[in-house]
């Protein structure tokens, strides 16, 4: 158990507490993972049990493990090459394939032999050049050549089995119910991946007329291949709101925070490659992201607090966590602030349950707004997702959807092909900075509260709380980012291998993303909005979020990111 995952409501030893008559609820620690995943809605069910390590630390270890395996390419060992990747398809049987060429099968007539390179004419009439290991002197032009490889389905099956083993070990460390986890993870994985495959159907995904011609289709929803994320989210929402029995049965593996944090650790390496290619731009994006969140913290929080206190007549105990939850980073911030001002646990828990629901609404709406109005300012769009959408999962997920929609629109409208990774990178950068500063913000609030507003008996403000609230998965993100950045800058000759390695890691990042979307849907129970008494909370949330948080976020993002464009792919 780590204090980061638990909103800390305890600062006193039992004998001190008894002496000073502190409210017993102050002893309770809220399990932030549970709250963020909508698995609890009362102080009783949200209390952390002292078992296992936190999902925060676990995401760090899983992400680093996959990252290290992907680096096998540098040692000449393609450890993750069998991982499954999905292409846009019109024939579902051809949608899946292993990520690495070495694992793919190929068949055709030899048209050219050049050393170890063979050019083959395949059954579909297309030519492909492959590098082979066998003695090519025995081969002749015109002969048939076939190399057996993994089928797409077997690649998917291996990917599932591998992740099942890794995640079951993780579940053991998290002290989950293993039987239920294996069942739940199996459902989560297969449903998520099927949604991903559906989203890659050409009639849903293809965005440009040349591609429509290439696939031989007359219409397309033009949602890009990332439409699979939306399909997964909708599937999750259906399960979470209409088939709650299924949701309960798979609950043990419904862990959107674990999945997204693992994905963010892997994303660090991918963004390292992106940054190494344009270091100056990457530095600018990071600094501007930092500026944006400083502004957001100072302006958002104070405005929401004012609205909640003055116009909705909330007490200080309710207004402060509400302000943090709505304005900063949802669940983590609400719980951290609740701890800082020593609110009773019910306050941040109720705020958290609203945060989870409204984050899904934002996730469904904002990327499409960004596509329509910000496609000429892609980095503004990415940073906006990081600033406006609450919870790590929904924010980075929104960044991913926004990136694909904005890139596709820019390509279709102006023929500009922005490099992948920069828009989601802006969203992730802003979100990671927000996460890092939650502890600092809670610390500052605790000092202000205790010194000038209301100091409860026995309250102590400790600097160590900043570390306790520090999101540990960020350490993994920083490690993967800087390791790859270092390799990219110091050894530019290895860039090809670095890209291949991160490409393989990216396969798993995509799968964790998709599982995040599905499980976010499962935990978003909109019936919560009908609960007695939630109306007033929901009203202040709606008013602040859609009244000014989103728009101030847009202004701040525009201010710091307008004119900053991702590199363009030419040729």
């Amino acid at each position, binding site marked *: 158990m780590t204090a980061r995952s638990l909103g800390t409501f305890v600062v006193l030893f039992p004998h001190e507490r008894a002496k000073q008559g502190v409210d017993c609820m102050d002893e309770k620690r809220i399990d932030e993972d549970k709250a963020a995943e909508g698995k609890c809605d*009362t102080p009783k*069910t949200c209390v952390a049990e002292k078992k296992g390590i936190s999902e925060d630390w676990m995401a760090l270890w899983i992400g680093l493990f996959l990252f290290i395996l992907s680096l096998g390419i540098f040692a000449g060992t393609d450890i993750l090459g069998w991982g499954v990747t999905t292409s846009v398809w019109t024939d579902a049987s051809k949608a899946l394939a292993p990520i690495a060429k070495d694992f793919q099968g190929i068949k055709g007539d030899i048209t050219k032999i050049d050393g170890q390179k063979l050019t083959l004419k395949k059954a579909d009439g297309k030519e492909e050049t492959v590098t082979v290991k066998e003695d090519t002197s025995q081969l002749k032009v015109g002969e048939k050549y076939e190399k057996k490889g993994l089928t797409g389905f077997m690649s998917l099956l291996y990917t599932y089995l591998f992740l099942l083993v890794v995640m079951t070990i993780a579940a053991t460390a998290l002290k989950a119910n293993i039987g239920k986890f294996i069942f739940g993870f199996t459902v989560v994985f297969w449903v998520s991946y099927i949604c991903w495959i559906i989203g890659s159907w050409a009639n849903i995904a293809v965005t440009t007329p040349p591609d429509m011609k290439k696939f031989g289709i007359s219409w397309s929803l033009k949602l890009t291949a990332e439409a699979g994320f939306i399909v997964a989210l909708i599937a999750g929402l259906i399960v979470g709101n209409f088939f709650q029995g299924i949701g309960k049965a798979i609950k043990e593996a419904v862990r959107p925070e674990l999945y997204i944090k693992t994905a963010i650790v892997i994303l660090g390496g991918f963004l390292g490659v992106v940054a190494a290619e344009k270091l100056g*731009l990457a530095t*600018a994006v990071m600094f501007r992201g930092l500026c944006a969140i400083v502004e957001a913290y100072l302006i958002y929080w104070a405005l929401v607090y004012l609205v909640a*206190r003055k116009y909705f007549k909330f*007490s200080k105990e309710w207004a402060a966590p509400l302000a943090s939850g709505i304005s900063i980073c949802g669940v983590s911030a609400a719980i951290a602030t609740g701890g800082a001002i020593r609110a009773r646990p019910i306050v941040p828990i109720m705020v958290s349950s609203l945060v989870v629901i409204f984050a899904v609404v934002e996730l469904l709406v904002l990327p499409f707004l960004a596509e329509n109005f910000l496609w000429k300012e892609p980095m503004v769009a990415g940073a906006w997702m990081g600033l406006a959408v609450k919870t790590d999962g929904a924010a980075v997920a929104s960044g991913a959807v926004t990136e694909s929609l904005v890139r596709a629109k820019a390509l279709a409208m102006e023929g500009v092909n922005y490099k992948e990774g920069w828009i989601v990178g802006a969203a992730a950068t802003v979100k990671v900075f927000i996460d890092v500063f939650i502890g600092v913000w809670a610390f500052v609030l605790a000092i202000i509260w205790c010194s000038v*507003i209301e100091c409860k008996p026995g309250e102590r403000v400790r600097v160590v709380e900043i570390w306790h609230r520090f999101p540990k998965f960020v350490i993994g993100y920083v490690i993967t980012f800087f390791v790859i950045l270092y390799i990219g800058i110091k050894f530019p000759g290895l860039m090809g291998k670095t890209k291949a390695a991160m490409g393989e890691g990216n396969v798993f990042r995509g799968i964790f993303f998709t599982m995040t979307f599905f499980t976010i849907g499962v935990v978003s129970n909109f019936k919560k909005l009908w609960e007695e008494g939630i109306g007033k909370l929901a009203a202040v949330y709606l008013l602040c979020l859609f009244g000014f948080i989103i728009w101030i976020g847009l202004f701040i993002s525009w201010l*710091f990111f307008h004119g900053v464009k991702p*590199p363009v792919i030419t040729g």
Partner: protein
Amino acid sequence: MAERAKAESATTEQPKLAEELKKMEYEPLLPVEKKLIGWSIGLGTGLIFILYWVSVTFFPGGH
């Protein structure tokens, strides 16, 4: 008896949101809170200009 105790325990352990909000007493906005809000927004507004200048001057985004 046992059921009543159970119900009481459930009530104490799982406070209802509606009841909690009803129990909430009106607390007028204190001058110190107004000051906190004012300082926070003022600092944020002031920093906008400084941070914008720093980012444009030292971290240009054009490439």
